[in-house]
């Protein structure tokens, strides 16, 4: 299951206002944006 589905659900429910990533490589972060 994709982790972004969980984050999207939490934002829709109002439990989370924004999401972020710690200790990711720039390459992985840019892929998260496009996949």
């Amino acid at each position, binding site marked *: *299951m*994709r*982790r*972004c*589905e*969980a*984050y999207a*659900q*939490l934002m829709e429910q*109002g*439990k*989370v*206002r*924004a*999401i*972020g*990533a*710690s*200790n*990711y*490589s720039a390459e*992985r972060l840019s*892929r*998260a944006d496009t*996949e």
Partner: protein
Amino acid sequence: MRRRSLGNSGLEVAPLAFGGNVFGWTVDERTSFRLLDAFVAAGFNLIDTADAYSRFAPGNRGGESETIIGKWLKQGGRRDKVIIATKVGLEMGPQMKGLSKAYILRAVEDSLRRLQTDYIDLYQSHRDDPDTPL
């Protein structure tokens, strides 16, 4: 205190964050409350923590930092005055780590309960999880 936009998150933060990994470890509860009061009184607002803080300290299990922040909010800290950033993903116990959808949905409820709030301003993946698709 001048606020800055945090990326395009919509969050407006003062330019210095409080690193909450000291709570319940090198700083006890009473001192934590005083530090948070002083931090907010000085005009700062961003408190950064993680569910796993401070599991790295001997005798701790994780959740100590969020628990202290939650108690501080409960005893008079103003929720609307602070931006709470926390994290998920580092090990919290057997079968309790990573970034699967099921685990995130479970871990966020634990964090909300410890923080004694119904929302987290910024929820972060603590580190990448190569076993879960982005």
